[in-house]
């Protein structure tokens, strides 16, 4: 037979990739859903401590990061419009903007975590254990959930950079942009999770 590899039919189905991407997004939603269950149970069990501990976080930094992520969501959504209109330059520029905003988010996060850690507030620290159970759990969840979220940002950075390269090489173009679209979906998911993390950790004091 003329086959050269295990699978010969090059079968392109953008709709299938999109359903697959959505299903993946659902798994991510449930992954964080599990953490939101833990958060809500412990908040219910330790209401006062959670409110006081949330007061320790800097609302300004949290708000700045929220706005950064929202803008980055818009830039990547716009990059799809640009792609559909066949504007390669603008697509790359918008993806670059998304990349830059994602980095800005991480830098903010780095300084935020850094200052908390230098104050002795990190999982398993003695200072935290002195504060009591509610604070221990709040900061445990804070580091775990924002950490897992930051990990998703880092993965997003890599994927967006990869898509930029693909757009640059015209392997993703105005009639074949499922990859860009799915990356966009992933990036919006990261934004969605943050939309809930932000009020739960920074605002409800």
């Amino acid at each position: 037979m003329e086959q050269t590899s295990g699978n010969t039919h090059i079968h392109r189905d953008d709709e299938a990739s999109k359903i697959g991407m959505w299903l993946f997004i659902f798994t991510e939603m449930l992954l964080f859903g599990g953490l939101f269950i833990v958060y809500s149970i412990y908040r219910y069990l330790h209401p006062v401590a959670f409110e006081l501990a949330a007061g320790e976080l800097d609302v300004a930094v949290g708000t700045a990061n929220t706005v950064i992520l929202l803008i980055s969501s818009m830039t990547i959504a716009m990059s799809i419009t640009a792609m559909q209109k066949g504007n390669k330059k603008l697509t790359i520029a918008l993806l670059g903007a998304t990349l830059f905003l994602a980095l800005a988010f991480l830098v903010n996060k780095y300084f935020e975590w850094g200052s908390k850690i230098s104050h002795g507030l990190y999982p398993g620290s003695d200072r935290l254990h002195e504060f009591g159970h509610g604070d221990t759990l709040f900061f445990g969840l804070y580091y775990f959930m924002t950490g897992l979220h930051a990990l998703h940002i880092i993965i997003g950075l890599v994927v967006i950079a990869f898509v930029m390269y693909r757009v640059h090489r015209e392997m993703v173009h105005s009639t074949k942009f499922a990859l860009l679209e799915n990356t966009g979906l992933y990036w919006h998911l990261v934004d969605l999770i943050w939309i809930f993390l932000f009020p739960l950790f920074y605002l409800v004091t």
Partner: protein
Amino acid sequence: MSENHTRSVDEPSYLKYKGRYRGIFAWIFSTDHKRIGLLYLWSILTFFIVGAILGLLMKMELISPGKNIMGPQTYNGFFTLHGIIMIFLIVIPGLPAVFGNFFLPIMIGAKDVAFPRLNLTSWWLYLLGAFVVLTSQFTGGGPPDTGWTFYAPYSFQTPTNMLPAVTGAFILGFSSILTGLNFIVTIHRMRAPGMGWFKMPLFPWSLYATGWIQVIATPIVGVTLLMIIAERVLNIGFFNPALGGDPILYQHLFWIYSHPAVYIMILPAMGAISEIIPTFARKTIFGYKAIIVSTIAIAFVGYFVWGHHMFTSGMSGVALYTFSILTFLVAIPSAIKVFNWVSTMHKASIILKTPFYWAVSFIFVFMIGGFSGLVLGALATNVHLHDTHFVVAHFHFIVFGGTGFAFLGAMHYWFPKIFGRKYDAGWANIGWITFFIGFITLYVPMFYLGIAGMPRRYYDYVEVFHGGNIISSFGSIILIAGIAIVIANLVKSAISGEKADQNPWGGRTLEWEVPSPPPLENFDEIPHVTRGPYDYS
């Protein structure tokens, strides 16, 4: 189901075709769904032999009171490893990964699954996960001893080597999710023209429901296992009562996945049974839509019954009643299926062949397992029976009896299609009856031991339980003999059996319209489906 789509006979089958790679690489790097199905089959068979031997050794330990062949710590390690292997490596991938991979695309008239490379990735992740799990046995502080449930707080306090076991389970979860995702997309996008949702055979339907459970339940256990890892590494305190955490919350999160996991195991098994019975009854399946609806109902309601594993944990009364009622509700769709299978056989001129024997014995053991499940789902009896051998007998009837009988039934049903060869029917029947007798002898005494109060997970017991344990341990030897006969017969037939026809059983679903074994891309042209799946008129 449609006109004949047989390819020319001289075209090489999926077993024979030459790809880019040679030898074993032609298999482990193949993205062909049929080869991946067989990769899973061989991996699962290997792990099953290990898991079964562990089980046999535990039964030998329990043959008389006191220490026989192993001490308590070894026994703890054995039931943990037995559980992890059997649950995560065998029954969860089991039918979907082997028969789902092999037959889903063929049964819906497609050339492959939607994402062939992702499919291969799933298998590699499966292998990686298995490897990581097994390293826990040989490194660090010794084999994990928590049981496969990793209950907190013990799971982050035990000095044994938990990290690899938990990490491995996480990776295996990933593999399972990717398989489920792939199947859902395949079913949404790749059904042959004319095959509407309600012309799809029941095995694909069960895989569809299973896929959804895999996608929405597995992430919860994924994050829970991550939290256990964080707990061990960073001492965060999520489930540590000394730091304010709640161990019962761990149980909630664990069972939010692990109860639906039972349906990941049993739904495809029910799907396979729904294929076997109409073929041998030569009749359209009774209540095709009722079976579909009950499949979805089991998947859906089954997602909300996890608390019945925790009746003695100290949950609130309201939660207890809710979970108990929901548990009883989930029995209804299961009963509908049994009713439909029996009605299909009613007044049919049944052809008695090995797959049919497996199918009817499946119904038998599944009903015993299901009814004992109701005993456990009732709050009052549960208090008495929780953590006794009754529970062990119950879930082995469902998980091993249900999934195991269906798996071997499916194996005997589809064997001629997979390998293009017939198996020795005489030995197959001897294997089946030995397996069946061994199974009953092994697990029925456990019901009585459990009611009498013998707890699970102890290597020792008091003299009063001796009689039942002798019978049970004796049954385990018969069962192992049965397994050996079945495996030996199938392996031998796969190598040197007589050539099989395209359609040895007279089945009407699409997989019987391609050659045995099927060629690389199954169909020359995608068939146009005009009839329902079980049209025997």
